[in-house]
């Protein structure tokens, strides 16, 4: 194959991807059943995989650890976002729409990223650092143990609990007399109950359903209670969510590339990844660089967690398991240890899974990821974007 032809072949998928993304951003694909629609669905899903895969790949790259607990950092981030959206009340700020909703989501993303990152820092210092010299099997099992621990702590912790929760849409508050008749959406009020055990339970009670008219009695009661006490849910439309995810991934990938290639910390990360002892001799505080890598990886996973849950509408302690596993596969597909590889692997997996489900079979979809994984491992163990395989002795 001539180099020019090879370059063309490599550029083609990138061009196709760019085309799909542009069409998505313009907003005319994703809602139908054409190839282009499925491609765009795959790109969105792949972008979420990529978010998580980046963390896997960074941690693997630096200490050769498959961090099975990464999916739980994702879950922790998702829950942080959940609580911010549900309880922070940012959407009550007196700003014109869509600012309150936008700010609520930004706060949720930030909280998610910080919580996930902090959790990763703690986990690294408490579990991974002490065991770094004990061999990789021990480290791997520690990671599995940590994953189980976080999952089950979340299940037992009353604030989170073992069941799945609907993802909260930001509440858009209104006054009783602002509710149109017939209603343009479901409207709710918050009611507090006291259970026999003395627990105070807050429930959203519907006041009027979409298309129905509010009875004057109810309107009067609500007005008597005063103020803006009814709300509807500011759900984001699917296209908004999808586009934001793709844009977020693009921003994160560029930012990460800049950080790793251009900054002092990034250079230290690459140095530690190649040769920890030599990096130490350069004056690099290896522990701190590893901690920073964990933080950064989990930071991205936290963003991915909010994106994922906002898209699929629920969150639970096992939220991180499936995306974590798929992202791990994506990281290996792309070449574990390689940052562009994680993005490419994530997008590749997302697109191929969805095309397969759409055009071949929904029944066998789940085996596809693993078959792809085996095929890539056998043909090109370092992945689609990995460097040539070399044994470090």
């Amino acid at each position, binding site marked *: 194959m001539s180099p020019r032809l090879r370059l063309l072949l490599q550029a083609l998928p990138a061009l196709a991807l760019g085309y799909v993304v542009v069409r998505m951003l313009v907003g005319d694909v994703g809602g139908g059943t054409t190839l282009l629609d499925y491609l765009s669905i795959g790109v969105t899903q792949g972008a979420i995989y990529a978010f998580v895969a980046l963390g896997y790949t960074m941690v693997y790259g630096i200490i050769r650890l498959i961090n099975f607990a990464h999916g739980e950092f994702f879950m922790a981030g998702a829950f942080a976002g959940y609580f911010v959206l549900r309880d922070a009340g940012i959407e009550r700020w007196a700003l014109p729409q869509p600012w309150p909703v936008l700010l609520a989501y930004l706060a949720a993303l930030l909280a998610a990223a910080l919580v996930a990152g902090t959790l990763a820092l703690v986990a690294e210092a408490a579990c991974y650092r002490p065991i770094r010299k004990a061999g990789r099997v021990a480290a791997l099992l520690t990671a599995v143990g940590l994953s189980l621990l976080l999952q089950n702590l979340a299940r037992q912790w009353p604030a989170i609990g073992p069941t799945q929760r609907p993802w909260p849409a930001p509440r858009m508050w209104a006054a009783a007399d602002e509710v149109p008749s017939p209603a343009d959406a479901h409207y709710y009020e918050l009611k507090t109950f006291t259970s026999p055990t003395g627990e105070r339970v807050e429930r959203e009670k519907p006041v009027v359903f979409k298309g129905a008219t509010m009875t004057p009695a109810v309107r009067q009661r609500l007005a008597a209670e005063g103020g803006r006490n009814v709300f509807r849910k500011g759900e984001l439309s699917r296209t908004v969510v999808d586009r934001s995810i793709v844009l977020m991934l693009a921003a994160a990938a560029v930012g990460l590339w800049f950080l790793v290639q251009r900054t002092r910390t990034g*250079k*230290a990360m*690459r*140095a530690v990844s*190649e040769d920890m002892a030599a*990096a*130490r001799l350069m004056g690099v505080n*290896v522990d701190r660089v590893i901690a920073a890598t964990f933080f950064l990886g989990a930071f991205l996973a936290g963003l991915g967690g909010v994106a994922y849950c906002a898209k699929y509408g629920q969150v639970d302690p096992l939220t991180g398991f499936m995306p974590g596993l798929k992202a791990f596969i994506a990281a290996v597909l792309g070449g574990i240890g390689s940052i562009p590889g994680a993005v490419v692997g994530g997008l590749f997996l997302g697109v191929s899974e969805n095309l397969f489900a759409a055009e071949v079979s929904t029944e066998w979809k789940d085996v596809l990821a693993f078959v792809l994984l085996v095929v890539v491992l056998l043909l090109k163990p370092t992945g689609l974007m990995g460097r040539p395989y070399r044994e470090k002795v």
Partner: protein
Amino acid sequence: MLVVEDLVVAYGAVVALHGVSLEAKQGEIVTLIGANGAGKSTTLRAVSGMVAPRRGSVRLDGREVGGVPAHRLVRRGLAHVPEGRRIFTGLSVRENLELGAYTVRGRAEVAARLERVLALFPRLAERIAQSGGTLSGGEQQMLAIGRAMMARPRLLLLDEPSLGLAPLLVREIFREIARINREEGTTILLVEQNAHLALSTAHRGYVLETGRVALADAAPALLESPRVRAAYLGAT
């Protein structure tokens, strides 16, 4: 400036150093010679903080540094060029050199040092954008030394700089070492298999045997010592 006293180092149950004492004064080149496994590299590693000593003391400028992690010692003016060079093959020559000045904040300062090191090793300037892995063995050794020099060390530890290099290149490297010592005033602790070359470059030398100092003297005296000549210089 460096004083090592009664240093004991063990890897698990294997004791590598049984109480080594040595000293390097400001501006000196001191060499450690000895057979394979005599503990030369281990001594360097204990000095630079890569291994923690089990007993004994390592003092740098009068302050105890035994057990201080390696990355902190860099700020105290110590640089270690490890055995096998250990350059970062995936990073460019420039990035390798910049990492050498990792502890230095301030772009201007790093740029100035880079210029200086490139003046010392013009061959590296030609290869500045190449990745470290594409360099020849001799160039890699220059890169390793140049990278260490980016930290402006007052004490430079060199571990087997001649390893795997052609004789012509070895001589070039040693000329550079002598020049660094002369022009920058850097104190150098040199571990070397090639005892003849090492002793001709150094001011003083120590002979290590099975983890102990067997002989210590000025380098010219060691070169003349019958024991050294018999054991390490291949003379009859």
